[in-house]
C-alpha cells in the first residue's frame, strides 16, 4: 500500500479518517461511551430489584413517563432497560467495542502492513456503526419507549406493540439500528480477513502470526458467515411487523383483538436468531482470548504454551460454534432427538475451551511474571473463563437445562463468561496497548486499584446468581416479591445490588485514568513492555503508514521470550537469526 502523502485536515484526520489507528480509537471511544450507558441501565434495574416498587434518585436519569406516581419504575420499562442493556453490551460494547477497536488497531501493525486493505471501507464500517448508535440511543426517547422484548427480541412479543409498548416505534428503530450495525460489522470483517491474508510483510507466515491476529481472523470469519443470518431473521420480522405477513405469527389474540396471521412459527425466528446468536458469543470471546494470550506471554516472559494447539482450539471452537445453537432452544418443544444432538455438540465445545485454559496455566508455570494492570486483567479473564465455562456444562446438558433455563443460573453463567471474561480481556487490551495508541502511559497504581475493586465486585455480583437460579428464580422478572417462594432470596438480591453499584462506581477510576493519561500521562517509550511483536517497532509518534521507512522483515515467531542463549529476555520478530540460531 502506498503511503498517503495528502495533507490531513482536521476532518480527514479525526472524523472521516481512513487510518486504521484512528478508526480503532473511534470504535473504542464509542464503545466506552455505550458501556457507560449500558452499565447505568444495569445499576438502575438492580436498584429496582433490591428495593422493589420504591423510588430512587437514579430514576431521575430516565424519561419521565417511565416512572409511575409512586416514584417506582414501571414494569414494562424495567424490561426496556434489561433489553437495551443486553443489546448495548452484547453488540455495541463487546462486539464493536472489542473487535472494532483491537482488530482495527492491531491487525496492520502486528502483521507489518501500512494500513488495512481498504481504508475507505474501513472508514465506512465505523460510520455505519456511529449512525446505528445514534438511532439506538434515540429509540430510548420515543413514545412507548425502546425495544422491550429482551435483547433476543422473540416474536410475537417483539412484533406486537399491543403486547408491550416498546414493540412499537422503539422496536422499529432497534431493527434499523441493528441492520446498520451488522452492515458496519461486515464491512469491518471483510477488511480484517483480506488484510491478514494478503498484506503480511515479508517473512510473516501464518505460523509466525501472533495469536491475537489468529483470534481476530477467526472471529472475522465467524462474523461474515453468521451476522447475515441475523439480517434475514430481522427482515422476516420486519415483514411481519409492518407488512402483515405470517412468517413468525400465528393464532394470536392480543388485547382482545384477533389477528389475521396464520401459519407462522415463532420457533423459526429462534432458529434463525440463534444461528447468529451462538457464534456471536464466540465473536465476543475469541478476541478477548487472543488479547489475553498476548498479554500473558509478554508479561510472563515466556512463549505462550502450545501455540499450534491454541490455534487449533480457536478453529475448533469456531467450527463447533455453528452447530450448537439449539442449546438455547431446549425448552421450545423441539424433537427430543434434536435436543440430544445439540447437547452432544455443546458439551464437545468444552474440550477446546479446556485445552486453552490448560495452555494458559502452563504458560504461567515457571514464568517470571510482571504484574502490569493488563496482566492482572488477563489473569482475571482466565479465572472467569474457568468459573463461567464450567457452569456451561450444566446448561448445555438438556436434561439439566429443564430446571435452569431462563433462570438466574444462566444469567450468572453468561455474565461471567462475557461480562467478566470478555470485558476483562478488553480492559487488558486497553491497558496494554494504550502506550501505542496514545503515546503515553496509564497510571499503574490506579490500574491496580481498578482491577482489584472490579474483580471483587464482579464476582460479588454474579456468583450469587447461581444460587438464585437453583432456587428457581426466573430472569427478566421486574420483582421477586410476587411469589412467596422467593421471599427468602431478597438478601441475596441486596448483596448483588450492593456489589453492582459499587462495581459501577469503581469503573470511574478507569475512566479517569484513561482520560487523564491521554493528556497528562508520562510519555511512553517505543517498547515499554519489551514485547516481541511488530507494533512495538513503530515510532511513538503515530504516523500514517505506520513505519517511516521500509516495512519490517520478519524472521521468527512472536514468542521468543527468555530464549536460551539470547542476551535479553525477548527478541523482536524482526531481529535476524544469529549465526547458528535455530528458529523455534
Amino acid at each position, binding site marked *: 500500500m502506498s503511503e498517503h502523502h495528502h495533507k490531513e485536515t482536521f476532518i480527514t484526520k479525526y472524523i472521516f479518517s481512513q487510518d486504521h489507528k484512528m478508526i480503532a480509537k473511534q470504535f473504542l471511544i464509542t464503545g466506552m461511551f455505550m458501556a457507560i450507558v449500558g452499565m447505568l441501565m444495569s445499576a438502575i434495574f438492580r436498584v429496582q430489584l433490591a428495593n422493589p416498587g420504591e423510588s430512587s*434518585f437514579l430514576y431521575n436519569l430516565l424519561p419521565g413517563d417511565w416512572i409511575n406516581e409512586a416514584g417506582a419504575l414501571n*414494569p*414494562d420499562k424495567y424490561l426496556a432497560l434489561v433489553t437495551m442493556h443486553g443489546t448495548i453490551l452484547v453488540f455495541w460494547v463487546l462486539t464493536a467495542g472489542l473487535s472494532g477497536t483491537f482488530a482495527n488497531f492491531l491487525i496492520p501493525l502486528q502483521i507489518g502492513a501500512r494500513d488495512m486493505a481498504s481504508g475507505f471501507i474501513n472508514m465506512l464500517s465505523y460510520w455505519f456503526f456511529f449512525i446505528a448508535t445514534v438511532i439506538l440511543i434515540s429509540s430510548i426517547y420515543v413514545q412507548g419507549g425502546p425495544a422491550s422484548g*429482551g435483547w433476543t427480541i*422473540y416474536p*410475537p*412479543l417483539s412484533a406486537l406493540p399491543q403486547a408491550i409498548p416498546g414493540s412499537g416505534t422503539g422496536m422499529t428503530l432497534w431493527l434499523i439500528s441493528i441492520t446498520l450495525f451488522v452492515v458496519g460489522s461486515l464491512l469491518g470483517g471483510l477488511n480484517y480477513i483480506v488484510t491478514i491474508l494478503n498484506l503480511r510483510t515479508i517473512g510473516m507466515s501464518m505460523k509466525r502470526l501472533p495469536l491475537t491476529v489468529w483470534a481476530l481472523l477467526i472471529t472475522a470469519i465467524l462474523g461474515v458467515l453468521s451476522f447475515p443470518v441475523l439480517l434475514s431473521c430481522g427482515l422476516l420480522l420486519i415483514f411481519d411487523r409492518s407488512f402483515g405477513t405470517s412468517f413468525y405469527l*400465528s393464532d*394470536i389474540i*392480543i388485547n382482545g383483538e384477533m389477528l389475521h396471521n396464520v401459519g407462522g*412459527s415463532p420457533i423459526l425466528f429462534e432458529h434463525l436468531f440463534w444461528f447468529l446468536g451462538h457464534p456471536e458469543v464466540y465473536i465476543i470471546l475469541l478476541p478477548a482470548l487472543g488479547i489475553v494470550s498476548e498479554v500473558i506471554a509478554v508479561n*510472563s*516472559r*515466556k512463549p505462550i*504454551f502450545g501455540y499450534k*494447539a491454541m490455534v487449533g482450539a480457536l478453529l475448533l471452537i469456531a467450527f463447533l460454534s455453528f452447530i450448537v445453537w439449539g442449546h438455547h432452544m431446549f425448552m421450545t*418443544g423441539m424433537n427430543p432427538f434434536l435436543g*440430544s444432538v445439540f*447437547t*452432544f455438540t455443546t*458439551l464437545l465445545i*468444552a*474440550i477446546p475451551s479446556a*485445552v486453552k485454559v*490448560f495452555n494458559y*496455566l*502452563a504458560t*504461567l*508455570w*515457571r*514464568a517470571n511474571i*510482571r*504484574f502490569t494492570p493488563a496482566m492482572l486483567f488477563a*489473569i482475571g479473564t*482466565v*479465572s472467569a473463563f*474457568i468459573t463461567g465455562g464450567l457452569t456451561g*456444562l*450444566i446448561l448445555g*446438558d438438556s436434561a439439566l437445562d*429443564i*430446571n435452569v433455563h*431462563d433462570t438466574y443460573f444462566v444469567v450468572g453463567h453468561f455474565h461471567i463468561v462475557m461480562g467478566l471474561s470478555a470485558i476483562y480481556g478488553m480492559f487488558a487490551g486497553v491497558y496494554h496497548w494504550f502506550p501505542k495508541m496514545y503515546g503515553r502511559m496509564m*497510571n*499503574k497504581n*490506579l490500574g491496580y486499584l481498578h482491577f482489584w475493586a472490579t474483580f*471483587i465486585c464482579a464476582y460479588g455480583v454474579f*456468583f450469587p446468581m447461581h444460587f438464585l437460579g437453583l432456587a*428457581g428464580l*426466573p430472569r*427478566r*422478572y*421486574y420483582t421477586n416479591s*410476587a411469589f412467596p417462594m422467593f421471599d427468602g432470596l431478597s438478601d*441475596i438480591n441486596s448483596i448483588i445490588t450492593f456489589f453492582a453499584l459499587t462495581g459501577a*462506581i469503581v469503573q470511574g477510576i478507569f475512566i*479517569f485514568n484513561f482520560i487523564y493519561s491521554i493528556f497528562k500521562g*508520562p510519555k511512553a517509550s517505543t517498547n515499554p513492555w519489551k514485547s516481541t511483536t511488530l507494533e512495538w517497532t513503530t515510532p511513538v509518534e503515530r504516523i500514517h503508514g505506520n513505519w517511516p521507512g521500509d516495512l519490517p522483515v520478519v524472521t521468527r515467531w512472536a514468542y521468543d*521470550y*527468555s530464549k536460551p542463549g539470547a542476551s535479553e529476555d525477548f527478541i523482536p520478530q524482526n531481529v535476524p537469526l544469529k549465526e547458528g540460531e535455530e528458529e523455534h
Partner: protein
Amino acid sequence: MTNTLIILVAVLIIAALVQITRVSELLSEIKKQDPNKVTDSNNKTQGILFLVVGSAFLIFVVWQMITWNHLLLPPASSLHGQEIDSLMKVSMGLILIVFFALTPLLFYFVYKYRGNKNNKAYFFAHNNKLEVIWTVIPTIILTCLIVYGLRTWERSMNPDLSQAKIIEVYAEQFKWTARESGTDNKLGKANFKLVTDRNALGVDMNDVNSIDDKVVREVHLVVNKPVLLKFRAKDVIHSAFLPHFRVQMNCVPGLSTQFAFTPTQTTAEMKEQEGDDFEFVLLCNKICGAAHYNMQMSFIVETQQEYDAWIASQKKLSEKLLTQK
C-alpha cells in the same frame, strides 16, 4: 436514601484515592523515577494479593454454598425429576472439583512465579504429550457425562403416556388457565378463532370430546399418577415452569407443546417438609410483557379421594357454554 449515601461515600473515596495517586506520581517525577515501571516490590504485592483475594474468593464460594443451601429448591417432587437431581449432583460435583482444582492452581502459580529481576522464565513452548493428555482426559470425562445426560433427557422426554391424565394449560398475558379433559381423558379440539368472552380457551363445543372438559383456575393432580400437560398460548410466547417438579416447556402461539411427569409427593407432605406456606406453583419463564413476573397458578397434589371430590365440584364446559355452530 441509603443508596444515595452509599454512592456519595463511594464517589468521595474514589476522588480521594485518585488525588493520592496523582500526588504519588508527581513525587516519583521529582525523584526521577518512572512511576509506571512495575517493580519487583509491585510483583510481590500483586502476587500476594492474588493469593489472598483468591483464597477469599474461594472461601466466599464455600460460604455461599453453606449459607444459601437451604434456599435452593427442595429435592424433586416427580419421578423424572429425581433422575435429573441425580444427574445434577454428579455434574455439579464434577464442575466443583474442577473449579476447586484449577482456580487455586491459577492463583498459586501467579503468586509463586511473581517476577523478580533475578529470575528467568523457563522457555517451555510446547509439549505434545501434555496436549494429548489434557485433551483426551476431558474428552473421556465429558463423553461419560454426555451419555449419562442424554439417557436422563431421553427418559424425561419419552415417558410412558398410556396411563397419563391429560390436562391442558393455557397461557396468556397475564394469567394461566387449565382445562381438565374429563372422564374420557380426551381434550376437545380448540381453535383461536373460537375464543369469545365466555369461551376463553376457544374450545370447539361441536367436538364430542369437549363435552366433559372442565376449565379450572388451579390444577389438582393425584400423587403417583402420571399426568400429561398440553400447552397452548394465546398471544405471545410464555413458558410453563414448575420448578418443584423439574418441568419446563415453552407455550407458543400457533404451536402445541407438552410435558409429561408423575408427581411423587402431595402438597400436604411438602407442607410438613418445607413449612406451612409451601405451595407447588406454576410460573411464567419466558419474557411475555409487563406482568411477566406475576403469572402464577397453583398446583395441588393430593390423594385420589381428594381429587375426585374436587373435580366433581367443577362445572363441565358443556354446562357453561351454549353449543356453537
